[in-house]
């Protein structure tokens, strides 16, 4: 059960840097930078939403706020009628960089969310089930550095899914994967969403990912970012941009909106 409401979220950072981010950057140290400017959003239960936006616009910041990691902001996040004040083990976050604990094996990482289960037999079964789900059987006792990038990402997905979370937050989960692995893991996430039907909010800068995966796409503007567009996608899956003209048109429209006029 999760119906997420985001009301009037504004987030400022104090600029701690002395150096400029770009030649045109006029910001000074100590200055307040508005990253999110009065964001209002709602998410349906079971929905797969992709948030797109230019780099540095505040996508990760927004996701961290919704997930309760960052409580220093104006506005409210309400899930199921309750105000979010902290992170919760019912809402799992999959990190942009690798969030596996590097000193723990795949098994121990997946166990993290289940470590307080009393019945150890049931616990072990559940751990194994999710390791199998992401096709990592045989790698239970490997440490993260002994896995490829794609396997690490799948292990983190298994860890997140094993707690059967109500909501899954994914922050650019395919970053750093080679193209083929990217597609494979993406397909896996789509399948998992179809299989467990939980709410998933994914931040990405790959437009194609959003078009292939999302029930709804939200586009944020450049900093200070506000919601520029939200669009429902009523296309059946699997989706193919080259075969479905409407999907292709939508892609071009989004590219234009993000300031890219020519698309091959």
């Amino acid at each position: 059960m999760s119906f997420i409401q985001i009301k009037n979220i504004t987030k400022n950072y104090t600029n701690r840097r002395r150096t400029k981010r770009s030649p045109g950057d006029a910001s000074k140290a100590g200055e307040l930078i508005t990253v999110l400017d009065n964001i209002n959003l709602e998410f349906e239960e079971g929905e797969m939403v992709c948030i797109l936006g230019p780099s540095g616009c505040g996508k990760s910041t927004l996701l961290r706020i919704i997930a309760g990691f960052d409580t220093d902001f104006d506005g409210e996040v309400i899930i199921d009628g309750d105000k979010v004040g902290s992170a919760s083990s019912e809402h799992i976050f999959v990190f942009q960089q690798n969030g596996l604990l590097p000193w723990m094996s795949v098994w121990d990482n997946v166990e993290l969310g289940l470590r307080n289960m009393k019945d150890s037999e049931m616990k072990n079964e559940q751990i194994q089930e999710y390791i199998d789900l992401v096709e990592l059987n045989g790698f239970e006792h490997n440490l993260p550095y002994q896995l490829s990038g794609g396997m690490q990402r799948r292990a983190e997905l298994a860890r997140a899914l094993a707690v059967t979370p109500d909501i899954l937050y994914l922050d650019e989960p395919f970053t750093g994967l080679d193209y083929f692995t990217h597609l494979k893991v993406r397909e896996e996430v789509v399948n998992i969403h179809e299989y467990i039907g939980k709410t998933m909010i994914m931040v990405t800068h790959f437009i194609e990912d959003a078009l292939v995966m999302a029930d709804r796409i939200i586009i944020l503007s450049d900093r200070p970012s506000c919601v520029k567009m939200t669009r429902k996608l009523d296309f059946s899956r699997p989706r193919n941009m080259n075969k479905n003209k409407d999907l292709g048109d939508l892609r071009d429209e989004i590219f234009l909106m993000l300031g890219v006029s020519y698309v091959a």
Partner: protein
Amino acid sequence: MYKASLLNEKFAILNKSLWLPIISVVLVIALWGAISQLGGLGKHVFPGPATVLLAFNELFNNGELIKHSVASLYRVTVGFYLAIFLGIPLGIVLGLNRTLSDMVDPVVQFLRPISPLAWIPLAMLWFGIGDKPAIFLIFLSSFFSLTMATTVAVKSINPIYFQVAANFNFNRAELLTKIIIPAITPDVITALRLTVAVAWLVVVAAEMIAVQSGLGYLILDSRNALRMDYVMVGMIVIGWIGLSLDLIMQKFSRVKWTAH
């Protein structure tokens, strides 16, 4: 044929890495012998390898060498453990608490570069003579570096791991045992390795004052007796033990969760 030549090559490499250090040690001893013979300084001022070997035998057989080595190692161990048990927890607390570290860091930073030897007068005044002042100096030589290294290590833990801990509702104990300690282990072990080397340097100096045992005392006492052969035995044993300590620390410093 091919296999055989490959095998030969392997042996050649093995031999090389085995023989080169032995050759250089033999050369150094030969050089030492030659200088002591031809340098004209005499056996009592610059004893050669044979004289020192005899002295070694003598000191080893009458138990002096072992007694002094044990005394030195005992002081280093106690001082070092004290530094570990106080410095590492303090470093963790400072690493987690910004306000506290802003207050304590400058003090530690200021005290750290003061050579432990500069504390000798105070150490003797406060702790009298015997093991205590020496242990205190060893403790000082390790404590500040360990505290600083631990603080820095905790501060540089990837914030993602703390978010993972929050996400999976870790309690304080779990945060410590599942995140903080494993994350800082590689850096802390490196610091321990450097610190133990410094502690070993300091113990010899500390033993030249205020104590009646230890390798530092052996050297000082032998000098007073004009027994340079004993002095050299002491130096060589100090070198050996220092090397062994480093090798032992090196064994521990292989952390198994990173690729390198």
